[in-house]
């Protein structure tokens, strides 16, 4: 079996795992720094909510982190500081996302390792591929649910007049589709594993 490509891909996943570890550590340290500086640090937090503005001209002003005013011809929305709860929820979401990515990369690395030694058709690999499919679909759904949850937290601290503000609903259909393809491949792989066992036990 040609092992150059699996070796390359395994090397890539090893690098990605190392990079992800560094990023996760940096996030934890950065969060600790922000807490340690008593909120005087600066950070960007993307809020998943949706505005409907029926005017071409609008302005967004902000005096401090987490606060601001959105003004347009049809009305105005005031954002109060949503508090530390939102930051903690968003941070936990990022950590959870990194953890899922970490597990997915480890599963991929193990699959490539079996390819290098020439025995990819193993029941474990079929199971690993199936889990990758579940992760892709579950990740897309979880992302949407979490965004709605964060949006609810933010909307609690918004008061608006004349402007329509709602949750941002945008399910990542591409990720769901990719997940379904991975699940189909896992089933094909499971059948391949069965054929491999038959071949191994044919004398």
């Amino acid at each position, binding site marked *: 079996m040609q092992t150059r490509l699996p070796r390359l891909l395994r090397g890539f996943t090893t690098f990605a795992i190392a990079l992800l570890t560094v990023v996760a550590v940096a996030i934890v340290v950065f969060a600790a720094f922000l807490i340690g500086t008593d909120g005087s640090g600066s950070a960007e937090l993307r809020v998943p909510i949706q505005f409907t503005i029926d005017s071409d001209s609008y302005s967004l002003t902000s005096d401090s982190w987490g606060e601001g005013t959105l003004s347009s011809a049809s009305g105005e929305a005031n954002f109060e500081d949503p508090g530390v709860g939102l930051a903690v929820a968003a941070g936990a979401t990022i950590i959870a996302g990194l953890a899922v990515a970490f597990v997915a990369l480890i599963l991929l690395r193990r699959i490539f390792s079996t390819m290098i030694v020439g025995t990819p058709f193993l029941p474990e690999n079929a199971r690993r591929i199936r889990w990758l499919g579940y992760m892709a679909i579950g990740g897309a759904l979880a992302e949407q649910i979490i965004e709605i949850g964060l949006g609810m937290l933010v909307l609690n601290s918004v008061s608006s007049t004349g402007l329509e503000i709602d949750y941002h609903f945008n399910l990542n259909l591409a990720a769901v589709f990719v997940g379904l393809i991975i699940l189909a491949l896992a089933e094909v792989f499971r059948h391949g594993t069965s054929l491999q*066992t*038959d071949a191994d*036990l*044919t*004398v």
Partner: protein
Amino acid sequence: MTISVHLDQLLLDHKMTLTELADRVGITVANLSILKTGKARAVRFSTLEAICRELNCQPGDVLRFSPE
């Protein structure tokens, strides 16, 4: 399993070891061991033919069907 393999008795009758038969038949000892212990899922005609030739027997002497 209702099909049983009787390589043990045949080897004993011919005073032949598993390694020797594997060598003569041209398959690995590991594969012949799989056949001997009844773990095999399938047997190639070519393997059966070679075993019968070396042990001077019929396929029915190697494999037996016993209804459960």
